[in-house]
């Protein structure tokens, strides 16, 4: 059953999406079969791609639109939002 989910979250950690946050995002999304996308301004990244996440250039205070598609879309979106909200545990 495919469901499109959408959430909005603000980057909380000081350094934004740098190495460790990117890798944690890739790991987290990898646990779900849903396709998760992150959007900052007009830039969109597939959350399974470290390259695209880096290119997103999300810094502290950036507004991120999280969309998820496919099985476990809700769970995946929640997990991503929680990770970002917690400042990636930094």
């Amino acid at each position: 059953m495919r469901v499109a989910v959408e959430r909005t979250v603000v980057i909380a950690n000081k350094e934004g999406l740098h190495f460790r946050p990117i890798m944690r995002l890739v790991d987290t999304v990898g646990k779900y079969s849903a396709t998760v996308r992150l959007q900052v301004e007009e830039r969109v990244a597939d959350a399974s791609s470290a390259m695209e996440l880096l290119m997103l250039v999300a810094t502290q205070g950036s507004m991120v639109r999280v969309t998820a598609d496919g099985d476990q879309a809700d769970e995946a979106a929640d997990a991503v939002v929680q990770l970002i909200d917690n400042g990636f545990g930094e």
Partner: protein
Amino acid sequence: MIQKKGIGASPGVAIATALILDTEEFRIPRRTIDAAQTPHEIRVLEASLAASCEEVKALRVAATRKLGEKTAEIFAFHLAILTDKRLRNSVVDLIEKYRYPAAYAFGQEMNRRQREFRAVADVYLKERVRDLYDIEKRVLRHILGRAREDIRNLTQPVIIVAHDVTPSQAVTFDREHILGFAINVGGQTSHMSIIARMLGIPAVVGLNDITSDITGGETIVVDGTNGVVIADPDGGTLARFRQQQLAYKAHVAELAPLRDQPAVTLDGQTITLQANIELAEEARTAIDGGAEGIGLYRTEFLFLANERPPTEEQQYEVFRGAVRHAQGRPLTLRTIDLGADKMMRSMRAEGHDANPTLGLRSLRYCLQHLDMFKTHLRAMLRAAVDGDVRIMFPMITTVIELRQAMSIVSDVKEDLEEEGVPFGAHVPLGMMVETPAAALLMSSFARHVDFVSIGTNDLTQYTLAVDRGNERVAHLYASHSPAVLRLIREIIKGCKRFKTSVSLCGEMAGARIYTQLLLGLGLRQLSMAAPELLEVKQVIRSTRISDCEAIARKVLRFDADRQVLNYLREQLDMLDGSAE
């Protein structure tokens, strides 16, 4: 398929994968491939990504140990990029859609990302573009055939593609795996070319920008006979060159029986053919290949392989080895000809000549570094005990220089005698004539020396004021220039007056187009790269001295290089025609 014309520096055909040497930046040509090749390029991409991952994993382990978890994170991130499926897919798309080769597609994709990233990134993230660059270079290195791998540790056959190859690089070449050379700079007589001929490896030089036309790892053809390089040849072309390769090998085989035939003209004049060598072991292959001795042993190559001058014992061992390899034949040791394009590291540190070919080089350098020079001469004189050794001084311009060099030899002999060290007491001493000054004053020199050897490479360079390694003026370099030929005539005349034996050891000696002319000018002894010996012998065995003299008389009346060359070519064609 790309075809480039250069200068044929060493004959023969080589077909192998390209190894690009010393590329600081990877310049990857934009080119398209056949649709059928796309799966191969995709496999190359994947293998290179996988190999890069392995490297990065190892780096991460090392970094964790040495620098801590935090620093090692960088490599974890690199790994995440290298395993990024979406990045891989976009490169594969470029390969499939535009038929780009893997290197070009990957380079394109990474460049685009870096550009976009730079445009938006803030100061902190901007630094990360360096990581992208680093990742790009790592993967390209794998795609381009391990371009930076040490050429001493080759495991499969390659053709070296480079801007230039320094003599010190050349001495470390692994001859087993290097099948050919394609070089941006240089001419027929640049050191790279000499070495290639010496090693019997096909080479094309003076290709200008071959390093940017060729992608490492792709198949290339080097046709050293015709001075052509072909990248990425199609099936038909490849077949044609394989044919040509066989024909060349057949030609070499056809000459082989000449090895045991004497070098005698049809009218009974015997000519002495010797070989030029750079490494001691080459003496054996040269003698076995039909040389009657070593007319020029360029001993500086022993110095170039090391950072500091070798010790007396080290030199002695090498020279003794050369004597042994020469198997009782004459062995002419030339004292080191360093400077200009052949430098040791310790020399570079001493100072810099704005105009090195006119600077502190060769014998001039030795006369200012007496301890080193004496050590060098001691080793030579000691090695002379075991064989027919001769010592020759290069780059002489004044009689005083020659006398100084000879008196240093006497000093060294006295020292050896006092110390009771055995040495060759009657070693003949000779000089090279490679400056117009020495040529013009030949009779002043000839009375002092036991023998003279004409070095036409430098003689041409100094007479015509042309740097033979400078591709912008290399076309002006011509050993057959009437000016050079008249100097050669003067040298021979000066030597005859004092009955001093004279030979010629420049590249001219090994080029069969000049053989008749040189005999006609009066030369009876030639020294050349061993692979050229039989070709020259073939000419000698099918000509007469009287014909050669007529050719020389005619040539000396010409006033343009072109006329000389055309006439000599005509004469050689006639000779070849009558032989068939």
